[in-house]
């Protein structure tokens, strides 16, 4: 059982490092960073308490939102998915990403208190 899991993981890692383009890896790194940040915030909340709750929510939702937007960006610029996004060029995807982030930041900063 564990054998197959390990083999699946190692196969996945191998395919990932070879097949994915650098651009996507950059985005993946960014996503990993966002994930860590969010997880650490949550850990703090679990350990120390929810005071001040609005700040926690603001920070956590920013991480979640940024992660989602990053995922969207990754999907849209992946050349394998080109067929699904014919009207959206890479630059357009990035511009959307920036615009959505602006709105997200505005809301989060409003809420952070």
């Amino acid at each position: 059982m564990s054998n197959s899991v390990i083999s699946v993981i190692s196969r996945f890692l191998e395919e990932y490092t070879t097949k994915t383009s650098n651009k996507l890896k950059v985005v993946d790194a960014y996503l990993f960073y966002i994930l860590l940040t969010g997880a650490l915030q949550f850990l703090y909340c679990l350990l120390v308490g929810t005071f001040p709750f609005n700040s926690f929510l603001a920070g956590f939702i920013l991480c979640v939102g940024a992660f989602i937007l990053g995922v969207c960006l990754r999907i849209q610029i992946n050349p394998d998915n080109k067929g699904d996004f014919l009207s959206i060029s890479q630059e357009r995807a990035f511009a959307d990403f920036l615009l959505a982030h602006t709105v997200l930041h505005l809301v989060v900063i409003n809420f952070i208190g």
Partner: protein
Amino acid sequence: MIYLYIIGVDMAQPRVFCLVLLTVALGAQALTPSHHLSLSDVDRLKGLLSQPFTDLASAYYSIVGLSKLGASVADENDACQFLKAQLDPMSVDSLFFAAEASQAIADCEMPVFNETRDILLAAVSEDSTVTQIFRAVSALSSLGLPLASQEVVAALVARIAKEDNVLAITTALQTATRLSQQAELGGILEEIEDLAARLDDLGGVYLQFEEGLEATALFVTAAYTLSDHADTEPPLKEDQVIQLVNSVFSKKSWDSRSEAFSVACAAAALSSNRFHVPVIVSTQGPATVSHSQPILHLLVTDILSNPLASANLLVESAQAVASKSVVLSQAPFSLRNGIFELNFMASQPASGYYQFTVAVTGDSRLVANQVELKVKVSTEVAVTNMDLSVVDKDQSIGTKTSRVDYPFKAKGSFTADSHQNFAMNFQLVDANTGVELTPHQTFVRFHNQKTGQEVVFVAEPDSKNLYKFELDTAERKSEFDSMSGTYVLHLIVGDATLENPILWNVADVVLKFLDEEAPAAIQSKTLYMPKPDIQHLFREPEKKPPTVVSNTFTALVLSPFLLLLILWFKLGANISNFSLSPSSVLFHVGHACMLGLMYVYWTHLNMFQTLKYLAIIGSLTFLAGNRMLAQKAVKRLASK
């Protein structure tokens, strides 16, 4: 609802007058008058009119007003001389006052000059005011001079059209009463109805002109005098007549002689016209009957408090208020010395309140002749079978029962401690008939002579009307503040229908309580001292974690950024493709500004300011970014 105000009794001595005012609310029956002129009111009216007069107008008001009330001026000869001396034969007003006043005095004739008739006739025309026409016509009629009624009617009709106010039309009505009956008074008679429509209805009780009391009283006088003269019933409904009575006679002290005069005229008109005579039914003394005073006395008068000559009084029904059973029906009153009497106790009514409906008959002119009044039948109460006992809680057998007779006190005292109950049984009966009574107030009062404590309980009757009172010493100790001691016991019996309320010191009771607390006197003293101040507690700030912990976690949360930079470096991400075109520079600067704006928003600004700045920076960044990305796209596609 009926309110009875009683001040004095004894009709035999005219000096002391009985003032009884009876008001009856709108029930199933019609309205009845709530105001009229009592004998003292009439005296006051006469007093005001009897004041010495200094000119012809006040002489007129006094002399004629008093004659309407059936009285006369103090010195008639003097008055007559005064009138003759003050007369100005050239003035219509002067002639009017003098002529009318002299008519009211016996053997007083005003001199008639040759020019008098001409002056008076000249005043009767369309060009004079209605008042002038009225005075001229009245003077002509009083002095016995001939006048042409039809011309007067024509002039009046013309003037009414021009002077369309209440006083003018009322004066026109008065003028018509002096004209011959053959004249065509139909048009003027119709004015009564039109004027009545202008009356203001106040709460369904009063009907008056907004011009005031004098106008209303003069209207009443004119309407009835003219109706009598023309032998036509005035178009006023019974309710309207009563409402007018209420308005005119509600004021009991008058501002001026002319107002008093108008009220006197209205009173005379309403008490002796041929169509509507309002009748007042009032009680003499309190409307209470009992075994000692079994007869109910009622007075039937007109609004001037003169007894009605031909009236008969009948009880249509007398109904008990509590049980709604009819005790008496269609029973006549007997007349004795001007007062109507009925022996109500002969019907053996139980004590309580009775609603009487009485009717006045004998004259078809009577208005408001069905009256409702409330009569109280009172009685005396006797306490019988008073048994006091101390009962043990475990057994229900009384250990000590003693009978006490009113008004004596029990010989020994009764002791009850927390294991015992103190019980009291008694009966309340009507002293005259032996019927059991349940008065409104039956209280048992315990009074501690030493501490001044007073505790009152209510004794309640059971289904057989036997009163029982039981004091559970342990249960009631809080009312007594657990103060043991000797309490004096009183029985208090009272009710509106009882003539002999009872306050009876029955016995002494020694009560013993367990765990006697601190003297209760202190409690009552501190009840009214200032209470301790309440300090406001501000909301406690929430507990914050120690700074060390939060600082650690801040560093921890920021650390993934380093990791990101390392990863990007490892992946070989670089900015070598950065073209220094103005649009890309502008884009990056704008973007940095936007992030900086976010920080400033967090620290200083509010949403509106931020949106303003964001709009400016954002649009610049967008344009630059658009340009930059377009260039990039072109480059990318070109390199493909």
